[in-house]
């Protein structure tokens, strides 16, 4: 077998291992779904009517606040998935099994690839669940079949970017606890964008940050695809952020793994 097919085979082995973990210990996976669902319930039913009144001038593409809120919360599911990757990679590192893999004649990228692909699958399943809950709560997207494909593409790309970044974080973190804390700012970032309320409603300094941070164009792209609100150049910017972050995260994680931070 060629080294390429060994790389594929090793990555599949690692992926099976991670999916087995997820299946046997679903706690962490459930926590990916739990947080966005709680946020969805909280913002829609507790703050919903007040927020809806405040942003009545903004086109939501639908009749109610949930139509504005759901795309933002769907994106937050992807950030929660990153946390699971960071914790999983760091746990493997502190338990010494990473060093075992590093002394074996296996494809060097396969350990990380297995983690990342496993997390992307888990996160996409979680996103599907969150979309389902939103639909039950009255979310009525207007997306066509092709737009749904595009939505799946954007979310996969975003998850891939965040997951590679998280894999690197998991390798440099000293303990699984700190690995779960480092990505927290990532989870807060959508709040400082257009996830919950439009950036127009924010004070000037914050608005400037909100408009230029990576999550806002991604949220606006998702919202446009789901609800038919204007997308403009958000799609191109979102794509650039996702692809750029994926490459940066991948190269960083690979180099940390190869050069050892064996902790």
């Amino acid at each position, binding site marked *: *077998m060629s080294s390429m097919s*060994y790389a594929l*085979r*090793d990555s599949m*082995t690692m992926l*099976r*291992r991670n999916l*087995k*973990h997820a299946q*046997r*210990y679903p706690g962490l996976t459930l926590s990916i779904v739990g947080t966005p669902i709680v946020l969805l319930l909280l913002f829609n039913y507790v703050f919903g009517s007040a927020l809806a009144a405040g942003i009545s001038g903004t086109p939501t593409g639908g009749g109610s606040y949930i139509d504005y809120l759901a795309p933002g919360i769907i994106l937050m599911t992807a950030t929660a998935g990153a946390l699971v990757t960071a914790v999983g990679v760091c746990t493997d590192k502190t*338990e*010494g*099994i990473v*060093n*075992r*893999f*590093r*002394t*074996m*004649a*296996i494809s060097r990228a396969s350990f990380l690839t297995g983690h990342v692909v496993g997390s992307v699958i888990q996160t996409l399943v979680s996103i599907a669940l969150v979309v389902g809950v939103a639909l039950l709560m009255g979310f009525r997207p207007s997306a066509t079949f092709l737009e749904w494909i595009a939505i799946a593409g954007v979310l996969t790309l975003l998850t891939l970017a965040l997951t590679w970044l998280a894999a690197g974080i998991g390798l440099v973190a000293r303990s699984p606890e700190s690995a779960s804390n480092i990505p927290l700012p990532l989870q807060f970032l959508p709040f400082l964008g257009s996830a919950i309320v439009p950036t127009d409603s924010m004070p000037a300094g914050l608005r400037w940050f909100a408009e230029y941070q990576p999550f806002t164009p991604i949220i606006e792209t998702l919202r446009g695809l789901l609800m038919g609100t204007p997308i403009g150049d958000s799609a191109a910017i979102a794509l650039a952020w996702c692809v750029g972050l994926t490459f940066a995260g991948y190269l960083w994680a690979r180099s940390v793994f190869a050069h*050892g931070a*064996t902790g």
Partner: protein
Amino acid sequence: MASSSATTLKPAISAAGLSKSYGDKVVLDGIDLRIPEGSIFALLGPNGAGKTTTVNILSTLIPADAGQAHVAGHDVAREGDAVRAAIGVTGQFSAVDNLLTAEENLLLMADLNHLPRREGRRRTADLLGRFDLTESARKPVVTFSGGMRRKLDLAMTLVGDPRIIFLDEPTTGLDPRSRRIMWEIIRSLVADGVTIFLTTQYLEEADQLADRIAVLDHGKLVAEGTAEELKRRIPGGHIRLRFADVSTLESAAALFGSVTSDRDELTLNIPSDGGVPALRSVLDVLDGASIEAEALTVHTPDLDDVFLTLTGHPRSGDDAPAQKESIR
């Protein structure tokens, strides 16, 4: 366990001038090694001596700052993949997947060694039986005791049938019974012609298992040889005799040349390597003079004696690197 002259020509592991520093702290200071195929080699030293660093360099986990090393005929720096294909490593902290069962851990190793499915299952069943883990095969490893975990760790290393095995402190922290079991397993491995590189803090362990022992202290090899050769260089061993009263003690002390006697304890210490001939000659001398000893104990040199003799300073513990740093 002695290797034939044909195999000694090609060492399984060789190193010249291996060095490694972290910042201004020198961990390895020019190590030379030559380990013949099919033998057990023990690297003996206290915590912080550089044992794990040596294993990490030879197993391609970290690069050396200077020097060369060949494992299974391949350069560890340039031919990492070829080295990794020939070796198995069981580190100081058991590298097992806690969330999987013992069987799944072994099957994972079989997959990563690219074994055909059936062969992987066969070796897994075989190793579970050999390491007495069959009954626990389907239990999650997280429930395992330290001894079972170490056994599984070593079994995982063996799935790939490595020709050279690194064992970094394989019995540290194990109870005496698990330690004996581990020793049995390690001995059985060499019978198949495997080369073993072992690190340990215990002279007894090196003595029990190794063909050759090297003593590592502060990143330097301070002695190398067989267990017998090392012990001969160490004067810490003695035979202690206890007598019924002071007069017997004194007449016995007069029979032996350079001895230390303790009049309160009524004991006599006679320097000795603790071997049977030495013991017999002591008893013969006592018999010849019709003196009877109440009790006899043999004290063999321990690691503390080895260190005191070879390095001129007592064995230092975990705090050694910190002390060394503060001196600079």
